[in-house]
């Protein structure tokens, strides 16, 4: 008999057992149990996987960190230079984080060494055909083109799109560094992807703040608005389940049924885009029933600030007769006015502190002005109460398509059960008026005093690009030229109110890292046309998979995957800093990005050699290690306690300010009375503090455009009226359905689309979901091949009748490559509408026009006689020797 004890199973047995430790009393007990199993079994142990392993018989740890931003610790086992198996590392010190990783990351091995892997540099020959080439030719071609374009049109005509920064600071950071070296325009992924929750800068003055997912288990009530956590945050989803097991409750708001509705305690089927009306009616109920936290509103929000009723503007202390503004206020903040009920006088408010006060929240006040006049003024809270008069539960119930009692019941629960946490999802946010809904939900979180409490507050988990430490030491070189411009302007052209700098001749080149904009970005068709017509003169692509962008680019560089390089990752979902490590060599000619950008910089301009010291490709790991050490050393107090050696061993935890295990957003503001906002790295605080000049959470915005649009306070505005129907009144009849391109369980955006296991799980077929009634109205039935269309584009798929889909909605799972879908693109229907409130300020990826994916009207019709198109050319597997007529696909059922 052989047991694990005398077989060299390098740390496998204890690890395999210990990740189950949460169900056992202790991990020691579990381990004892395992040993007993082996002692008594007659089963012969399998040949240990460590035998003959090329890397010293170890499972090697890395971090799976694509654009889901989940950052899951993984281990891979290697044979013959290829990864054969992937498993979760499950080594997080906080046991409930284990295991972390989903079906996609765990089957990445099929793609690392798959037929779509890029292994050679690609350029276009004289005939315009893409051909394989050597590195020197590819690098020189790219360098020459980019230099020419910069000289002709200016360096900011070169746009840069890169995958979210938190997913990689060294290699991806190198693209930011080269953009800053030459003054290329960084196109913010946050706004491009619709992931910029504009209510955050509008209300809290920061890019975003959110609970790390392990705080979810501490919530007693979780309200989820349009965030399909169970599908889009798989490694974190169990923390909601754990909250339920601990007696907490989860209420899920969504027009459509989903896995997240199934796991919730309650599903509230509200009409699409009506979340704001629901939240405003909750707020009204909470105020009317005196269930709100007056101290919180007085101390931390702009509720007491007096507004000039005539102008709609906040009154500055400097304007008021007999009032001295608070001294020492910097330019980016202001001293406003409140009425002090204790003193019976007007008072200048200080943006420098958040002190307890006796400021009035309601009433009307006469304010003597220095110009001799008198202003009628009301506190912001008074105006809020007046604004909310309209939003009775009955009024909102009509908009939401539910009954008023439900709103009242949930409002009372939200006000009394603590801690209460609101998850504000992409399904709710990615609308033209998404910011108004966010402001309404933030209001509920504040009225109930949940901000700054463990397990309480409001979070958004779309995208997540938040930078968690200072990265300037690497990404901002000496003499940096910083430029940026949102993609929205590229498509729409410059607007009168834009604050970003538009390149004088528009965009002429695109450098894309780890992204596939010709498929995946809004208006992908528009980009494809720009490439075809030559309006976009040059596309440089860095990727490890053969995407449409890679095959359409002027120059394509084959890159290393996250199993083939050293990279530093963080995520807002957990507090651990982790490394990606080189487990296998990049195949063929694929190389690390840090070497590619170093070479590119030197070849564009040899005078940049000091900023970009050259090294041989085989020294890329050494160079990455130097940058890693630099980033940690100069990263500031959240990270500078960590060393490369520690991170080579496993996850290292970021430091936070509050006491206790878990970081609490706004803890310093609420408990140490540090004024708002929190910092939005990499921007200095003075760049963003002007968003909340009072130093408080602001629900009242008095910039002209907000007043003009009557959005100075949160309100409800219906979908499509300011976009589709305004653009084309006929759209109301022609395109009566809302088009939702939701995230799939089987992809992270378009990544993993060519994973053969994922394709099998979807019957190799793109699908379109409609309510059975909606399908019947169009004479469509389950299994029909259909086309979703509007005036801008079309996408095809096989119809699935789903009673869980709201009757006015059409759903397509985003991320399908167009060559899997008859060449059609789901993004061809979308338009990047610009909401002018998003243009009031401009800081890339903080306050900027945001993508409203869901603000798309469409219709559905039969296509190709209804005959389904099943992918059979994926190159994923060959099917040898099967008898004819036997389906190679057993999963699910072909309709």
């Amino acid at each position, binding site marked *: 008999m052989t047991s*694990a004890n005398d077989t060299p199973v390098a740390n*496998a*047995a204890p690890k*395999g057992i210990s990740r*189950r430790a949460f*169900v*056992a*009393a202790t991990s020691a007990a579990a381990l004892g*149990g*395992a040993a007993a*199993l082996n002692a008594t079994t*007659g*089963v012969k142990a*399998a040949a*240990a*996987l460590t035998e003959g392993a090329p890397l010293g018989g170890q499972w090697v740890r890395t971090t799976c960190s694509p654009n889901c931003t989940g950052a899951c610790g993984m281990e891979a086992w290697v044979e013959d230079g*290829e990864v*054969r*198996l*992937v*498993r*979760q590392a*499950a080594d997080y010190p906080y046991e409930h984080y284990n295991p972390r*990783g*989903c*079906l996609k990351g*765990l*089957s990445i*091995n*099929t793609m690392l060494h*798959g037929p779509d892997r890029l292994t050679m540099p690609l350029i276009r020959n004289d005939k315009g055909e893409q051909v394989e080439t050597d590195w020197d030719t590819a690098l020189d071609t790219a360098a020459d083109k980019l230099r020419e374009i910069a000289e002709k049109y200016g360096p900011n005509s070169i746009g840069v799109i890169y995958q979210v920064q938190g997913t990689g600071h060294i290699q991806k950071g190198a693209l930011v560094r080269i953009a800053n070296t030459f003054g290329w325009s960084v196109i913010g992924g946050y706004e491009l992807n619709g992931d910029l929750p504009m209510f955050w800068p509008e209300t809290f003055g920061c890019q975003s703040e959110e609970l790390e997912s392990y705080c979810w288990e501490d919530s007693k009530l979780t309200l989820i608005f349009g965030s399909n956590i169970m*599908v889009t945050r798989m490694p974190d989803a*169990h923390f909601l*389940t754990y909250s339920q097991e601990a007696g907490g409750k989860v209420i899920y708001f969504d027009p459509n049924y989903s896995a997240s*509705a*199934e796991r*919730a*305690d*309650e599903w509230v*089927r509200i009409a699409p885009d009506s979340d704001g009306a629901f939240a405003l009616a909750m707020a009204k109920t909470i105020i009317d029933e005196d269930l709100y936290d007056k101290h919180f509103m007085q101390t931390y929000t702009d509720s007491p600030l007096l507004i000039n009723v005539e102008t709609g503007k906040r009154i500055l202390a400097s304007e008021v007769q007999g009032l001295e503004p608070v001294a020492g206020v910097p330019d980016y903040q202001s001293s406003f006015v409140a009425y002090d009920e204790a003193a019976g006088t007007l008072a200048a408010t200080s943006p420098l502190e958040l002190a307890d006060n006796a400021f009035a929240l309601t009433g009307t006040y006469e304010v003597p002005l220095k110009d001799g006049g008198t202003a009628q003024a009301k506190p912001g809270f008074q105006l809020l109460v007046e604004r909310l008069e309209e939003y009775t539960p009955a009024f909102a119930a009509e908009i939401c*398509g539910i*009954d008023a009692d*439900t709103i009242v019941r949930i409002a009372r629960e939200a006000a009394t059960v603590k801690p209460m946490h609101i998850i504000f999802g992409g399904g709710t946010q990615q609308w033209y008026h998404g910011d108004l809904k966010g402001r309404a939900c933030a209001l509920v979180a504040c009225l109930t005093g949940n901000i700054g409490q463990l397990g309480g507050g409001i979070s958004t988990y779309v995208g997540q690009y938040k930078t968690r430490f200072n990265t300037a030491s690497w990404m901002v070189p000496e003499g940096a030229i910083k430029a940026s411009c949102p993609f929205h302007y590229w498509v729409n052209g410059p607007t009168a109110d834009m604050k970003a700098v538009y390149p004088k001749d528009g965009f002429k080149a695109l450098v894309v890292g780890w992204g596939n904009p010709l498929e995946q970005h809004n208006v992908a068709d528009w980009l494809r046309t720009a490439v075809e017509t030559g309006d976009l003169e040059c596309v440089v692509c860095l990727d490890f998979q053969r995407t449409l962008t890679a095959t359409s680019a002027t120059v394509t560089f084959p890159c290393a995957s996250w199993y083939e390089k050293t990279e530093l990752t963080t995520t807002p979902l957990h507090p651990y800093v982790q490394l990606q490590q080189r487990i296998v060599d990049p*195949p063929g000619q694929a190389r690390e990005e840090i070497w590619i950008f170093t070479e590119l910089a030197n070849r564009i301009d040899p005078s940049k050699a000091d900023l970009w010291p050259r090294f041989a490709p085989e020294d890329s790991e050494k160079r990455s290690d130097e940058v890693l050490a630099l980033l940690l050393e100069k990263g500031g107090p959240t990270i500078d306690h960590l060393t490369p050696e520690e991170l080579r061993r496993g996850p290292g935890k970021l430091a936070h300010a509050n006491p206790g295990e878990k970081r609490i957003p706004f803890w310093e503001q609420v408990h140490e009375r540090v004024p708002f906002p929190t910092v939005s790295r990499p921007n200095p605080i003075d760049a963003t503090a002007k968003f909340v000049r009072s130093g408080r959470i602001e629900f009242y915005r008095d910039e002209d455009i907000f007043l003009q649009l009557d959005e100075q306070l949160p309100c409800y505005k219906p979908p499509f009226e300011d976009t589709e129907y305004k653009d084309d009144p006929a759209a109301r009849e022609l395109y009566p359905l809302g088009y939702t391109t939701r995230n799939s*369980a089987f992809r992270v955006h378009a990544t993993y689309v060519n994973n053969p*296991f994922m394709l*099998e799980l979807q019957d190799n077929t793109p699908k379109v979901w409609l309510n059975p009634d909606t399908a019947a109205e169009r004479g469509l039935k389950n299994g029909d091949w259909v086309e979703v269309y509007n005036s801008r584009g079309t996408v095809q798929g096989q119809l*699935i009748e*789903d*009673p*869980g889909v709201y009757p006015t909605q059409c759903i397509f799972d985003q991320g399908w490559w167009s060559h899997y879908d008859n060449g059609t693109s789901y993004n061809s229907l979308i338009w990047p509408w610009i909401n002018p409130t998003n243009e009031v300020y401009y800081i890339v990826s903080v306050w900027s026009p945001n993508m409203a994916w869901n603000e798309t009207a469409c219709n559905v019709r039969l296509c190709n006689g209804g005959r389904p198109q099943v992918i059979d050319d994926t*190159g994923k*597997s*060959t099917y*040898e*020797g*099967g*008898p004819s007529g036997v389906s*190679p696909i057993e999963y699910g059922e072909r*309709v």
Partner: protein
Amino acid sequence: MRYAMAIDLGRCIGCRTCAVVCKDFNAQPQGIWWNRVFTSGTPEYDVAVKVNDQLRMEFVPISCQHCTDAPCETACPTQATYTDKDTGTVLVDYDRCIGCRMCASACPYGVRQYNWGAPAKMVGLDGSVYRYGWPHEYRDGDHLVYTPERPEGVMEKCTFCAQLTSQGQDPACCTACPGNARIFGDMDDADSPIRRYLEGKETYTLGEEYRTEPNVYYIAAHGVSQVNLLSTGAEGEEANHG
């Protein structure tokens, strides 16, 4: 000793991570899935199903139930399918399997997966074959119960990851479940993780009418209160359980 698995449906999010790691770790060829996650009442994924007057999406992961009284074993004419007496695991000896598929007919759970012909190879780099999964064959005594290269025309199914459990590790689906919904252990040992997890919990097994005495135990999910004033189907019923 009796190996068993518990699946807590209250924790299952239907993500299919268990199915995918099962496939990857056990080198299952195209078309073969030892472990599948169904949504009760539909062959599709991400579809709601009317249950009474409510919408539901009830996930049910199903793999071999490792029945104590296994009909597949009784049906097998060559004793290729057998129960490992040390652990109670139902295994298939690929050397003995003649591909008659009697076992598949006998199994009430539809979990047996048959290799019609030579299994497909996965395409790798530059036209090569990419090999994935546990790279070595595993024999239980003389029985070949796992090999990454499937013989032509054999029946296969879940082995509780015999190559892992023999080393004292849990099956891949149990260690990988991001929801920690799958618990493995020895039902004969009161201190085992599965016994501790099941303590005080109500369980059921699939197809109790077949009297197969499965060793996979399910814990039912909680209901979902629904506020849904829309009709959930043609009959136009209202579902309002707010």
